[in-house]
Structure formats: C-alpha cells, structure tokens
C-alpha cells in the first residue's frame, strides 16, 4: 500500500520547477498520444509546438491569444491567492464583450472619434465588474458558494450573447446571419505590427501584469490578499475584513475579464459580435493562473505557453490532420501534471506495510 506523507518543508526550487516539469511531462504525454493516434510523434510534436512560432505572424498570433489569458488569469490569481474562487471569468468576459460591443453595434454605429474605443473598454470592464458583483454579493450577504454562482452565471452570459445576436442585435443587412453590425472603424483595436493581427491589447495586458505585480508585492493590498488566503483568522486579527476582500477580488477580476472581452471583439474577433467570441479563454485562464504560480510574471509566461496550445492545435490539424481537440487534451495534460507535481512537492510517496 502507498501512502502520501507530508514533507516537513517543501523545497522552494522545486516549487519554481514544477511548471517546467509539468510542461515537459505534457510534451512527452503528447508524443505518446500522437503515436497512439497513428502519427509519427516527432513531426506531430513539431507541428504542435514549434511550427506555429516559426514565423513573425505566428509569434504575433501567440501574443494575440495570450492577451485575454493574461487579463483573465491576473484577476483570477488575485482571488486564488486570497482563497476566493472566481470560476466565472468566461461569463464576465462574455458580458464585457456584449456591453462594450453592443455600444458600438447598437448605439454608436455611425459615430467616430478617439473617445469611442476608450468608452467601450470602460463599458466592458464595468459590465464584467457588475456581473462579478453578483457572486460577491451572494457570498458576503448570504454565504452562498461563489464557485457555483460564478460558474452558473457564465452560462447565463453565454446564452444572453447568443440570444442577442440571433435576435434583436442581428445585423439588418447581414443576410440573417447571427451576427451584429460591424463596429465603426474608430471602435476597433489599433494594430501595432504591420502584416499581423497584433493589437494594442497585448501591451495593455502587459501593463496590467506590471501593475498587478507591484500591487501584490509592494502594497498593503497584496499583503492583505496573501494573509486572507493563508490564514483567515490572522487576517481578522490584522483587521482585514473578509467581506471587503471578497468584494475587492470579484470586482477587480470581473473588470479585467470584461476588459478582455471587449478587446477580443474589437480586435481578433473582427469588430462585430458573433455567437461565440472566446474558445474558453476564461476557463483556460484558471490553468494559466496556476501554471504561472499565481504570480503576474509567471502568468505572462504561462499565458504564452497555453496560447501555443491553441495555435498548435490549429496547425496540427492543418499539417498533420490531427483533430483540433488535441488543444483541449494538451491543456488538460498540463493542469493534470501541474497538480500532480505540486502534490509531490508537498508530499512524498511512502510504501507502508499492510496493517
């Protein structure tokens, strides 16, 4: 019989190393999977991990996919550090896109001016914030589990988007496709690298990461979140109010997810609302947050790795004829090996005799 035994002190170098170990294990498991699917593993792995980033366009795409992941994961990580579990970033992202995009598609579709895009970004962030305020309110007021509420509200948001683009927000000149009008030109993300889709959102996400890094490491706010997560009673002893922590976390992470949503529809999605605007960025951001060790710098790196799994899946589909589902499988591998490695950093396996 095997038993898990807690280590007296987890090794710090190992804690830093686990994301890399998990990544290596995922690559190996990916190779085994490709072989089992009847593809020679090395070309398939090349197509998945290397091929997409051999061109400058590919690198730019990597940054494009990483942008919403960084924004959502930063917000989630702030909560996870404090022991507050917002699982609904996908819904907050969607509602941010609906409100920010709706402004351009339904109200200001004839307008122009530099004020339009900032207004939409603000509206999107505000919508994500309000959507996240619902679980925060229910948790602090009635003690309702925030995991369930934030998760369920995701499906409400996704269906709301679908209902709007299939119904009242459908483009009157769009041949009945379930899509909104195109946004006016001033309501799209400026591109920053010619010949690619790289847009202003990426530096914006990096700026958010930088601010989060500073706030977490250097301000009383970051300290308060860490204490709330590590020792709730010590947080009360210090005079940090647990309700305020829940509110803060949900409002910040909701606003960031909402921001990510508007950036998607004004950028890569193409300047209109469509029934599906995110391949699950809000959920994948949970993996990114943990892979990045809940640290803003780690999250930026992790977001690039996970973004590669989206590009790799598309590329492997084109060049190797692999199903696109390998993207999800690879993300699953990554989370699985990360959690397993984390367990082994904190515990050791010991063989015990049968009692």
């Amino acid at each position: 019989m095997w038993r898990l035994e807690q280590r007296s002190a987890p090794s710090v170098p190992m804690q830093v190393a686990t994301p890399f170990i998990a990544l290596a294990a995922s690559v190996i498991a990916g190779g085994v999977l490709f072989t089992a699917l009847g593809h020679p593993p090395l070309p398939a792995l090349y197509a998945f991990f290397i091929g997409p980033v051999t061109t400058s366009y590919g690198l730019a795409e990597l940054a494009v996919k990483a942008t919403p992941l960084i924004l959502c994961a930063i917000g989630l990580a702030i909560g996870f550090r404090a022991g507050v579990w917002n699982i609904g970033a996908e819904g907050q992202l969607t509602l941010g896109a609906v409100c920010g995009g709706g402004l351009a598609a339904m109200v200001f579709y004839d307008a122009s001016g530099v004020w339009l895009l900032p207004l939409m970004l603000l509206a999107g962030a505000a919508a994500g914030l309000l959507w996240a305020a619902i679980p925060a309110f229910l948790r602090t007021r009635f003690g309702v589990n925030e995991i369930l509420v934030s998760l369920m509200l995701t499906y409400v948001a996704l269906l709301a988007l679908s209902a709007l683009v299939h119904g009242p927000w459908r483009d009157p000149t769009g041949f009945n496709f379930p899509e909104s009008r195109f946004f006016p030109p001033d309501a799209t993300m400026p591109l920053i690298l010619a010949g690619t889709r790289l847009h202003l959102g990426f530096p914006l996400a990096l700026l958010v990461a930088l601010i989060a890094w500073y706030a977490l490491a250097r301000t009383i706010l970051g300290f308060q979140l860490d204490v709330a997560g590590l020792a709730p009673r010590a947080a009360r002893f210090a005079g940090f109010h647990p309700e305020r922590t829940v509110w803060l976390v949900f409002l910040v992470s909701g606003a960031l997810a909402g921001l990510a949503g508007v950036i998607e529809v004004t950028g890569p999605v193409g300047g209109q609302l469509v029934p599906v605007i995110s391949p699950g960025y809000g959920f994948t951001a949970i993996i990114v947050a943990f892979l990045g060790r809940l640290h803003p710098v780690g999250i930026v790196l992790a977001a690039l790795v996970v973004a590669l799994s989206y590009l790799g899946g598309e590329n492997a589909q084109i060049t190797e004829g692999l199903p696109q589902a390998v993207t999800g499988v690879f993300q699953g591998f990554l989370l699985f090996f990360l959690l397993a490695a984390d367990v082994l950093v904190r515990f050791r396996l010991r063989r015990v005799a049968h009692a």
Partner: protein
Amino acid sequence: MSVAAAAPPRLKLRGITKRFPGTLANDAVDLVVRPGEIHALLGENGAGKSTLVKIVYGLLAADAGEIRWDGKPVSIQSPNAARALGIAMVFQHFSLFDALTVAENVALGLPGSRSVEALAPVIREVGDAYGLALDPERPVHTLSVGERQRIEVVRALLQEPRLLVMDEPTSVLTPQEVERLFETLRRLRDAGVSILYISHKLDEIRELCDRATILRRGRVVATADPRAETAATLGALMVGGTIGGAAHHAGPASAAVRLEARALTLPAMSPTGTGLTGVSFAVRAGEILGIAGVAGNGQGELLAALGGEVATQPADALLLDGVPIGALDVRRRRALGLAYVPEERVGHGSVGELPLTDNVLLSGLRARVMGALGMLDRGATRRYAAEVVARFQVATTGIQAIARSLSGGNLQKFLIGRELMQGPKVLVCGQPTWGVDAGAAAAVHQALFDLANQGAALVIVSQDLDELFLLADRIAVLNRGRLSAPRPAGELDAEAVGLLMGGVHGETHDVAA
C-alpha cells in the same frame, strides 16, 4: 512490588536515537519501566518526550537502539504492533465524535467489530473497577473534558494493556478531575499495569509516580525517585539550572481604570463555541487580571470581544480609558493603545508561511512600518522585525525565517514583543506560555511584568493555574460564558479556583445541557 522487581522489566529501551533534520530529538536514550510501576517521563517542551513515546507506540521508527519487551527484543513497526504487545496510549488531544454516544465512540476505537450493545455493560464494569464512572448511552457533546478523557482511558483499558502511555493527561483537567484520574491510575498500577506518564508538572509527578526519567535536549540526564526530590531539585534537573523568578508589584488600588467590561454579552461565534453572558470586570493601570477556566467556556469569544475581532453591543459595554470601544474594529482599538495576543500563535497571531518581516505587519501597521498610499516600506518593516528579535531575544535563523519555523517559545516571544514595541496601554493575552519551554516562559512572564510596571493594564486568559497565580494580582474564573467576580490572588488557592472552574461542569450533574 517486590515480585515486580524480580521479573524482567516490562519495557526496556537502550540507546534509542532519533534524528530529525536539524535536531537530535533522542540521543542514546535508556529507559526502564517495571511491571506495576508509574514511571514519569519528565522534561521541558522539546526535550524529546513525545518523540520517544511515538517510537514506543510504533508511530516513529528509531534510527538506532533496542527495544525489549518483557526481556525479549522486539521491533514495533506500527501502532497495531504496539497494541498487539499490550501497549495502549491516551493522547493529549482526544479523538472523539461529539454526536455519538460514549459506547459508540468506544466501539469505533476498538480493533475488530463489537456491538455497541455488548460494550455497554463492559464499559460499566471497567468503569466500576477503576473509578471511571461513565454512562455508555450519553452523547459525547454533553460531557465535560474530564469525562471525555475517561472515554479514552476506558477505550485503552478495554484492550487490556500491560503498558499504558499517558501524554500530558492533566493539561485540560480541573484539580478535582486530576485527583480522580490519579486514583484510577493508582488502581491500575496495583492491578499490575505499568504506566508511562509524560508531564512537565513537577508536583503531579511527585504525588503520583514511583520513578522518573528526566530528559533534557534529547538525553537522559537523570533517573530519580520523585518522592525523594523536591519540586525545585526536579525542576533544576529538567531545565539544567535555576530560573530567575520574575517580579512585579501591583499598582496602587487607586490607579485609574484602563479597561472595563460592563455586562459584556456576545452570542457564540461557532456552533461549538460558548457565548458570553454579562461579563464584567475592571483592570487598573499597573494591574494584571488573570482569567482562569477550562477550555471551551468562552475564552475564544472573550479574547475576540476584547481584541476587537467582533464588535459588541452596546458600544459602552467595553471602555478603554473611559472611551467606549465596543463598536470599534481591531485597528481602531490598536490606535487607541489596546494590544492583543491571541491564543493560537500560528494561523491567528501569525501567518505560518510568511517571514517575520511580513508578520510584524499584522498588528504593526500603525507603528510607522507602512509608507504612504498603502505601499509597504520594506526597509522599515525589516528594521522593526530585527528590533523585536533583538530586544526579546528571539532565537531564529533570521528575520526572513517563516513564522512556522520558530519554536513555540520563540514565536511567542516574537508575538508578544511585536505588541510591546508599540507601547500598549492595555494588553489582552491568551495562553501566554502554553507549550512554551521554561526558559522562554520566564522571559515572557518578565516582559509582561515589565509592561505592568510601566503602567499598562493586562488581562491574561490562561488554563494554567500555576501561571495565573504567578502573574495575576486578581483572578476571575470563566465558566459557561459567565465570569466570576475577580478576587485578589492572595485570597485564593488552587482548590477554590478549581471549584469555580468545575462549576456546573461538575461530576454529578444528571441533566444534559
């Protein structure tokens, strides 16, 4: 016991050595327990007592050394192996299910399956034989701590042990309950059971035990007949030298009242907690008020209410220098000069995973360790932590050490130092020296005296009566959320306080609460 002396020792340890990273917990320990003797294992916290009994009970494996049982060498790989030999253990912390009855709890703890109905008469029988009165049908949550311990003892006895190991059994009992436990242990000894009795309470050991093995820093420093020793000589053996007594003179009775509670009432903070009912007291400048009581009688609620973790209605139920503070939160109370040291050091008074430099921030926000705009001034934080460590002689690898890595005594010195550095007018402290070695306890006591001598008012909530008699000018007892009227410590003795502590938790109540 003349027969016993001729038989081989029931348990004989030779050269038991156990090393943990950084410490040698047991260094070539020899120990002999004879049949039918109560053998004390005496030592400070951290002397290696627990490690040694864990080896005997099969919870840890020794790195070197030999165990002989009835003269034959044995290897004890697991608690099951220990039980098979006839070794039973009663732990300091009980493992009982509150919602189940006595008999159900006993049945759960026994190997094999025996029906609850069949056990009830057996429990009564064993109880009668050894003075362990227990009603098998009673749910555990209606029992006092002393009665709960009896369940553990009965459970151990049903395995018909030949060696009973008891780890600090009296730390949670009232003096009257201790007396009853001793009576049981003596009967067991007379029936031929050997008892290994672990404690650091010198008077108990002198009263109860036939022989004592004294451990210091993992080594056996002496084997003695405790009855032939005085508490002072045993204590000197245990700590390796005499400890300087601390001194305090209470302020004049006319000094101003600094902290006053007026009929403080608070609902229980958790389903297993005890609310406060009409708690009233006043502490003057330079005075130390001791609050005694068995754990679970509202201590947690009282500390939280005084410290400010929960607000109390009305606001003037609590006054600090005449200012109503009942509605103020922890930080506002701190700003007014009220310092608070919670009972639990790791997880409440400190965050175990964070370094000392971060832990000073928990209560030290006010004390200029925070820069403008919520930015942390890391330099100031480090200086503050270093000063606490230096002034209160905290043994640590450095100010970047995480709180959990400090020993109980050193962490407590740090936590109390963190508060004293801010020059509080009132200090509320829970269990100042619980689980702290004698040297650190003396340092903590001295620091508390110094604070009182500087004119602060102190409220000490502790389950350790010896400590309260040493520290307090006046003592009150908390029982079921009610506080007895504080009386001068000189007018009280342990028995009087013990009766108050027992209160309605006494031995003979028939009505479940």
